[in-house]
């Protein structure tokens, strides 16, 4: 799925990465706790999160995640947009909740995301 298609599905506002609309993504991870992202993510995923602070962008950068979607109608602050731009990252905002945003992407065919066995 391209970032362009994802933007349409999520009716998202683009805060950063307008030039990367043709970037292909094949997996997603929805999380608000960044250590869970670091424990779980193996692939190059889209990160859907309700966390709007620099740590969300920093975590994404360390994990080589190129696309971050802020859910639940949250807008990024200027410092977060600047960080995303500096790191060449796509940053989107959607009005949908985490559940609905993930559901819409899944329904549209984005199925990858990995499984972690119960400890």
């Amino acid at each position, binding site marked *: 799925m391209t970032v362009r298609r994802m933007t349409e599905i999520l009716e998202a506002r683009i805060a950063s990465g307008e030039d990367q609309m043709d970037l292909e993504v094949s997996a997603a991870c929805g999380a608000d706790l960044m250590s869970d992202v670091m*424990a779980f993510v193996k692939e190059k995923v889209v990160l859907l999160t309700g966390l709007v602070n620099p740590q969300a962008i920093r975590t994404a*950068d360390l994990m080589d995640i190129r696309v971050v979607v802020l859910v639940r109608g949250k807008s990024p602050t200027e410092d977060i947009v600047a960080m995303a731009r500096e790191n060449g990252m796509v940053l989107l905002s959607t009005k949908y909740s985490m559940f609905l945003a993930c559901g819409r992407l899944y329904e549209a065919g984005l199925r990858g995301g990995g499984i972690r066995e119960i400890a």
Partner: protein
Amino acid sequence: MKLKFEVGDEDFSLAGRASSELKGVLKRLGIGPDLVRRASIAMYEGEINMVIHAGGGVAEAEIEADRVVLTLIDAGPGIPDLSLAMTEGWSTAPDRFRELGFGAGMGLPNMRRNCDEFDIESEVGKGTSVRMVIRL
């Protein structure tokens, strides 16, 4: 090459600067992306831990030909039960850090998972030191 970082406790938004800088240096040295990611995550979780639990500390990265050695030392309250602290999902982080995206109880397990050697020493009332080795 040796990098040294003072990790402060004043501003949570600044936590992670050491790991970002480490990542940049390792990338410039041509080290593979998987190793860079592992070293950066180990350092980042360590930094976050020091900010949340110890009021800051000192983080060092020694980059050698065949390994990266990360050392994190703080003078915080120490960890009373290390085996409990190493359990996935067990957290003593205050709720305000959960609102900031941390406190999942995955910090120390993530650090151990991402390195080849992991040593932790902690004394209640004195502080904690962690040494992690990532073989290149």
